[in-house]
């Protein structure tokens, strides 16, 4: 028993050096060559950081495309989902409220056009994407507030749509931050 104990302690020390020092330092070193130098890829506009490419952010003004509802209001230092169960009445009332808000700000919209991702909270609370339908239903509003041609806005969505991986695997989506940056850039 005592022999095993001493072996265990020595082995633990050796493995800590290998697994907790050497391994992550190597990954950190190699990761320094990735986009964003291992600290996460940032999005710049006019030389200023306006966000992280992978992190969704809150858009509530009508002249921007909105992202998905977030249980933590896009707090990138405290990710979480709503964890609401599918039959929870209080939760369903919140979803109904989101449907009503969308209809209020997009008066020409029919309920059946609203995709589920626009009225349900994401898993992380930081979902950077919306479905293509989720973007399309907002074209009229954004165009009206920005006094732009609807076709110009629709074209931006097409340009910012990310297609399935290798064209075959997974869903299509639109990165909301990229789309809104492109929108702001239009004004120039």
């Amino acid at each position: 028993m005592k022999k095993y104990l001493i072996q265990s302690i020595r082995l633990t020390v050796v493995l800590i050096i290998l697994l907790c020092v050497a391994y992550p330092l190597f990954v950190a070193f190699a990761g320094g060559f990735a986009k964003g130098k291992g600290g996460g890829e940032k999005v710049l506009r006019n030389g200023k950081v306006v966000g992280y490419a992978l992190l969704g952010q809150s858009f509530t003004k009508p002249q921007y495309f909105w992202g998905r509802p977030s249980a933590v209001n896009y707090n990138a230092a405290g990710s979480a989902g709503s964890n609401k169960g599918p039959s929870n009445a209080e939760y369903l009332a919140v979803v109904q409220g989101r449907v009503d808000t969308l209809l209020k700000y997009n008066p020409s919209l029919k309920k059946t056009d609203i995709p589920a991702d626009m009225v349900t909270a994401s898993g992380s609370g930081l979902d950077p994407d919306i479905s293509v339908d989720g973007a399309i239903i907002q074209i009229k509003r954004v165009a009206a507030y920005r006094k732009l041609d609807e076709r110009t806005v629709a074209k931006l969505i097409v340009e910012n749509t990310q297609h399935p991986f290798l064209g075959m695997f997974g869903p299509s989506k639109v990165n909301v931050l990229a789309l809104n940056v492109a929108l702001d850039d239009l004004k120039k």
Partner: protein
Amino acid sequence: MNTELLGTVATYLLTLVIAIPLGIYLAKVFAGEKVWTDFLKPIENGIYKLSGINIKEQMNWKQHMKALMTVNLVWLVYGFFMLLFQDKLPLNPDANPAMTPDLAFNTVISFVANCNLQHYSGESGASYFIQHFVFMFLQFVSAATGIAAAVVFFKAFRDKTTNALGNFWEFFVKAITRLLLPLSLVVALILAFNGTPSSYAGKDQFISLQGDTVNVSRGPAAAFVAIKHLGTNGGGWFGANSAHPLENPSYLTNTVELIAQVIIPIAMVIAFGYFIRRKKLAWTIFGVMTIGMLMLLIPMMSSELGGNPAIAKMGVSQLTGAMEGKEVRFGPAISAYWSTVTTIISTGSVNSMHDSTMPMSGTWQLLGMMINSFYGGCGVGLLNYFIYLIIAVFISGLMVGRTPEFLGHKVEAREIKIAALITLLSPFMILAGTAIAAYVFTTHGDAAWAVQPKAWLNNPGFHGFSEMLYEITSSNANNGSGFEGLGDNNMFWNVTTGIIILLGRFLPIIGPVAIAGLLATKKFIPESAGTLKTDTKTFAIMTMAVILVLNALSYFPALALGPLAEYFTLFN
């Protein structure tokens, strides 16, 4: 077939393409045969030398278990004190405070036991030092512990009659140097180059496009997320686990993380067959496990793709399926696949929030953890399966009126007693644990814990009961996922689940290894016409029947009170 389903099928097929050769490789590694990674031998010899280990020393099953328990005890003590003094340790750029004793107790057990149930949140509860030197360290060694225990079990069936089952330290170290560490490097680099942070830089702040000030948690996550999946650990760097866009940035990384968590459990089954030179047995076991997985996956996928009927009533379009708690870049199809594998193989990482999945999906997630052996965790999945197999051997033996045998060894009273005790352990802990939780919730709502019992639940009614049932089941299965709405960082949950995790980890390792060790010392009986063959279709069906009947009898009432009741309410 749409792109979401195609992605799911491709992910599984790619998993097999990697897992099967990996299994054959592992069999050779642990049998000491020549493999291409032998160039790592000097490193291993260095580790043995520095630790004072002589790998020529043969151990019997009891010595193996003593070594295993001793080293795990060392980690428990080490981790516990590190967590208690987190605030005084280095590499804490976000100034996270120390853990309370009950939280430290729960957390260290959870990581030592390969469970990774997290009652803290990654962003605010753990410094980089703790994440690497305690959590990531334990993710490596707990996975290697499970694999080493499985190899001891392999050894017992390789030779006809033997007491010498190899050296525990050798299996353990090789599991790290030949398997976990190299694969982790590959996965970590893929993640780092696809957006997961890898540098030690602390929190960042920026002003968003519409003018809000946003704080961003970051940190060297890539190395951690790799072993979290390869070792079927599942503990997230960030609170939202692999739903977090930095922990799992894209469909590609999602595929990589999914493959990473399933390859070793499948490879261990294949390795078993090649190691004991009975390939057909391994394929039979693999077949049962795969059918079991599909029986959970297909209905789970259909319930998620079907969407929430309560939201359908509002007139919203759910073309892709239920989206609450899910991420757009993954979609419901691959999220349902993830939920299935993470519950059957005891990873417990999530890319969607299980608390918000449809009621029937909750049923399948719970069942996956209750059965806990369709592929199962790193090494331990096969050990869990072996218990069902021995029960099936015993019942079949009784049916045909012969002394039950397994691989040429008589299975007698002592082995069956151990198997029966381990079989009873899970229902006992899950049902008693949930009953106690429900009792405290209903009668001691005002108890002065950090979270008062009456405020535990995030959802009312049947779903609230499911939250408690899930927490206990996940602890017992060493899974670590949760219905995360549950307010679980308080004295009651920290202590109860801590104890359940500990028992649910070590007894189901010791039990099967003991049975195998005992069988190995018995006289070898050559196969004859009267031998019950364990690698046939008939026996596979028998094993499946044992698994289904045992679990249905144990858990149906509890499932009926939780997710099933919710299902009938929602769809009525």
